[in-house]
């Protein structure tokens, strides 16, 4: 063992720079890998932990208007053996303007009285007091962070007799309301507050917790429930699986992408290790012969190579893991913030341990595999000849008197073709760089387009949404009068339909959210990815996920049950939407019976050249707080800004690391190449080639490899990214994502690769200048 350690020590000293570069590469790969592992574990474990800890219901059934016999519903569920417990809470839906610290915000809240002594549906106070009193309110983390509400703030809330201030005494983790887009969100008040201040007739919020949870069981139970009701349930439901999907989709997909990227880097490292070990064996040919003649076994010599790289891994992985701590901490903090999970670093330590084991195993196997040919070296041959017999193959590309191709470029091409393995590895390095840079660029842009395209989140291209949903100050006619102003290009009223149900199959129906448009959908650019908007009362456009689930397409008929009546519609268009998990439909408002028509919101498109802020200011000044005005662009930005930031952060981090890995790898490969080609460079110098010309030969070669690799990488990245994004997006209901790519920035990626090859060549070829031809040839 001591002998192996000594050989390792000598090898480290001999190839200090090469080993340092390998160490940096492993370190960066470990960094990405550790973050990826941490992200995957984040997407799973903390959510389940919080859910179980707080004994949260898997399903919340909103019975707000008492149109259902809630006791009967509760009895039905209590009678099912699959259900562990049924909870029932008084609730009141608060919809309208609430004042916070002098400003007003539009809110859609379900107020519930917190069951102090009940161990079901607990919440976790992460900031504030554990007691709720009169005129005090607890709000969920998501609602608080979205609206920048702190403990101690006052909510000026509309109550039975005007407006009352409710003091926020705690921000709580309420699992169903801590992630995603929550409409409504939930807030808690003390026992008796609802009847005292808000309503005489409270609704009920029924919670179901299952003994064992599965999607199939849930669908089966729901079908049985509707059979019991004798009709489809037409209220709002909140589902654990939808929630989990929303929560996990971003983390797990990004985590998986990071693991994939780090796997590519690890693969790349393995290729480089194999190449370098092959080279080292040729370089150490005599030493190996001498060691063998001194009685060292093949196993011991292989062991010295394996051990050398393992030591490198054991240094690199903890450093890489340590550097990943900041990123993991930032991510885990965001989870702590929304889920209230105590950050105890276990996630980090676990990810680091996994990285350590994975890297150790991979590197040990690759090193052993690469150094296996040591067994074939015969001591006498090694000592006598000093180098393995080299097989020189004829290169088909000949250097000749080409008019339009310079000698140096011809030399580069021939060198490239003669050293196929080396060239392939360099091209592979650039392929990965091109792939990942184009991946980062395409992902960021595609997500940006998706998330900031209102058409894709269930909206349209209107600038503002004006609503009068609380109907306290203005009538619809007053509102419509406002809209007939010269600043406005057009407006269309929309009604939200939350009671329509659609049959998914023979036994299962679901309440599906719908929008009924009181005007021309085309005028506010409502989008479909295929087909057209409904123009007749019997026409409908459906969300892609809904179309997928019911197995229907354009021209098919779909029936919507509005409770009191059913109506069949012909599908004219299918659209993408992130809203309501992709289950959504759009119809003309005139398709509804006249008594049911009620405008909830007005979509406004301003005339070209009208300044949005000025218009908004003017509206507020003229009509005060009579209406809710929502800037649609800001709304989407607010909802998806964090996810976008996370994606950007990951894209920048990965691009940065890959760029560094590429530079150091090319530097390392060049060093190895130059060491192996010293004699040839010496000959070149002898017959009058300058250092710059030799450097340019290597540079041209690397640039050629870089361009070829980068272009392939970009093409693979383009299609691969599309494939990955489409896979992720189909999980949240977007089946026809348009991948956003532009040629010019992708050409910049090629340029970046060219620059990388130039820089890494400049760094690695400097030593050629210092060596005189004699030494090059004799060495």
């Amino acid at each position: 063992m001591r002998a192996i350690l000594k050989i390792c020590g000598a090898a480290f000293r001999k190839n200090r720079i090469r080993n340092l570069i390998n160490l940096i590469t492993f370190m960066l790969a470990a960094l990405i890998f550790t973050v990826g592992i941490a992200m995957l574990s984040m997407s799973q474990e903390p959510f389940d932990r919080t859910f179980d800890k707080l004994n949260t219901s898997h399903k919340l059934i909103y019975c707000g208007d008492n149109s259902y016999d809630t006791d009967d519903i509760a009895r039905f569920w209590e009678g099912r053996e699959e259900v562990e417990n049924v909870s029932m809470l008084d609730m009141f839906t608060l919809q309208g303007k609430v004042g916070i610290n002098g400003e007003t915000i539009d809110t859609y809240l379900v107020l519930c009285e917190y069951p102090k002594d009940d161990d079901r549906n607990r919440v976790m106070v992460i900031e504030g007091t554990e007691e709720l009193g009169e005129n005090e309110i607890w709000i969920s983390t998501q609602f608080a962070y979205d609206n920048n509400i702190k403990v101690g703030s006052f909510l000026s809330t509309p109550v039975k007799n005007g407006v009352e201030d409710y003091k926020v005494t705690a921000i709580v983790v309420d699992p169903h309301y801590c992630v995603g887009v929550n409409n409504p969100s939930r807030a808690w008040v003390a026992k008796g507050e609802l009847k005292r201040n808000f309503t005489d007739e409270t609704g009920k919020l029924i919670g179901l917790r299952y003994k064992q949870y599965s999607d199939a069981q849930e669908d089966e139970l729901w079908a049985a429930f509707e059979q019991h009701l004798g009709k489809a349930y037409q209220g709002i439901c909140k589902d654990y699986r939808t929630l989990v999907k929303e929560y996990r989709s971003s983390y797990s997909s990004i985590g998986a992408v990071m693991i994939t990227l780090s796997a590519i880097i690890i693969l790349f490292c393995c290729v480089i290790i194999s190449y370098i070990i092959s080279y080292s064996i040729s370089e150490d040919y005599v030493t190996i012969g001498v060691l063998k003649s001194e009685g060292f076994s093949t196993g011991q010599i292989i062991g010295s190579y394996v051990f050398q790289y393992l030591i490198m891994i054991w240094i690199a992985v903890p450093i890489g893991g340590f550097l990943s701590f900041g990123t993991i901490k930032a991510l885990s903090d965001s989870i702590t913030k929304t889920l209230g999970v105590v950050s105890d670093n276990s996630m980090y330590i676990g990810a680091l341990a996994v990285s350590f084991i994975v890297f150790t195993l991979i590197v040990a196997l690759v090193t052993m595999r690469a150094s296996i040919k040591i067994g074939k070296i015969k001591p006498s041959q090694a000592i006598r000849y000093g180098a393995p017999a080299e097989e020189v193959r004829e290169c088909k590309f000949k250097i000749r008197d080409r008019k339009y191709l310079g000698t140096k470029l011809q030399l580069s091409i021939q060198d490239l073709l003669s050293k196929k393995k080396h060239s392939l590895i360099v091209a592979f390095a650039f392929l990965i760089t091109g792939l990942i840079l184009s991946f980062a660029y395409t992902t960021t842009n595609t997500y940006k387009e998706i998330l900031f395209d209102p058409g894709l989140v269930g909206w349209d291209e209107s600038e503002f949404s004006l609503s009068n949903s609380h109907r306290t100050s203005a009538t619809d006619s007053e509102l419509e009068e406002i809209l007939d102003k010269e600043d406005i290009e057009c407006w269309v009223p929309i009604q939200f339909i939350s009671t329509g149900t659609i049959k998914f199959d023979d036994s299962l129906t679901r309440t599906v959210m719908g929008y009924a448009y009181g005007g021309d959908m085309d005028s506010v650019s409502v989008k479909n990815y295929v087909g057209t908007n409904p123009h007749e009362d019997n026409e409908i456009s459906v969300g892609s996920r809904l179309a997928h689930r019911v197995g229907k397409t354009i021209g098919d008929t779909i029936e919507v049950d509005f409770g009191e009546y059913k109506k069949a519609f012909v599908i004219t268009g299918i659209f993408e939407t992130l809203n309501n998990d992709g289950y959504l439909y759009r119809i003309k408002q005139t398709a509804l019976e006249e008594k049911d028509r009620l405008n909830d919101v007005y979509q406004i498109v301003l005339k070209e050249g009208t300044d949005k802020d000025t218009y908004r200011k003017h509206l507020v000044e003229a009509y005060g707080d009579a209406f809710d005005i929502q800037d649609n662009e800001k709304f989407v930005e607010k909802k998806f800004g964090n996810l976008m930031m996370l994606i950007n952060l990951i894209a920048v981090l990965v691009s940065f690391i890959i760029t560094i890995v590429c530079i150091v790898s090319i530097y390392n490969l060049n060093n190895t190449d130059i060491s192996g080609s010293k004699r040839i460079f010496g000959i070149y110098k002898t017959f009058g080639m300058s250092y710059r010309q030799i450097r340019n030969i290597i540079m041209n070669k690397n640039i050629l490899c870089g361009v070829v690799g980068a272009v392939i990488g970009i093409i693979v990245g383009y299609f691969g990214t599309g494939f990955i994004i489409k896979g992720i997006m189909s999980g949240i209901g977007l089946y026809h994502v348009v991948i956003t790519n532009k040629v010019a920035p992708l050409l910049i990626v090629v340029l970046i690769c060219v620059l990388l090859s130039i820089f890494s060549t400049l760094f690695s070829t400097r030593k050629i200048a210092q060596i005189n031809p004699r030494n090059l040839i004799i060495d």
Partner: protein
Amino acid sequence: MSSKKTIIECRDMCKSYQTGKEMVPVLNNLNIEIYEGDFTVIMGNSGSGKSTFLYSVSGLDNVTGGKVIYDGKEVQDLKEKQMVEFRRKEIGFVFQAICLVPNFTVMENVSVPGFLCEKNKRKVVDRASRLLEMMELKSEMKRLPSQISGGQQQKVAIARGLINSPRILFADEPTGALNSKQGENVLDVMTRLNEQGQSIVMVTHDIKAACRANRILFLRDGVIDGVLELSLYTPEDEDRREQEIYEFIKKRGW
């Protein structure tokens, strides 16, 4: 005083190598002139500094003291660009270890150095063909060095050294790695070149090779120990020349 034109002049030339912390002197204040059109041979024992002398005067290695003057210019003072021009146009070099580029064909090995300094590539190819023809290698020009014999390889190296019509051809034991027949063949080529006016400086420890020269410089411990002037070589004269060289060496106690 010789009437020949001096092509290279060494004045107090010194060369030392660093071995660990010590400087080991190899050439000590060496003063010598090399004349145009001569076939000059450097002889000496192992470690006498023959190869070091050759590399130093040809500009492939730096001197650590004194001057090497080529055509009135000090070689050690040449800037990188001038040095590159010097190596391209003024000298050709032939190594003992042959040193052909293994993945170049015979033709490429000869023509590539020519492409570097001649813009008319056609002209280079023509000259390379002529040189290879002269070396009786025309039929081998598409082969790789590994596909021809050692003697043929060395002739390719000579052709490469001559592609830019250098004023002086340096050869470091060009027959050292060859068998006697191949060596003879190579020496014949060099003799023929010299007859055509090519200046040659060759290092050898082989008397048979040395007798091709018209001037032999004997090196001992980094200094010139003696100079032997000979008449021009003829094959019939070979035995006598060998004897003369042998006696000269013997007189110096080698």
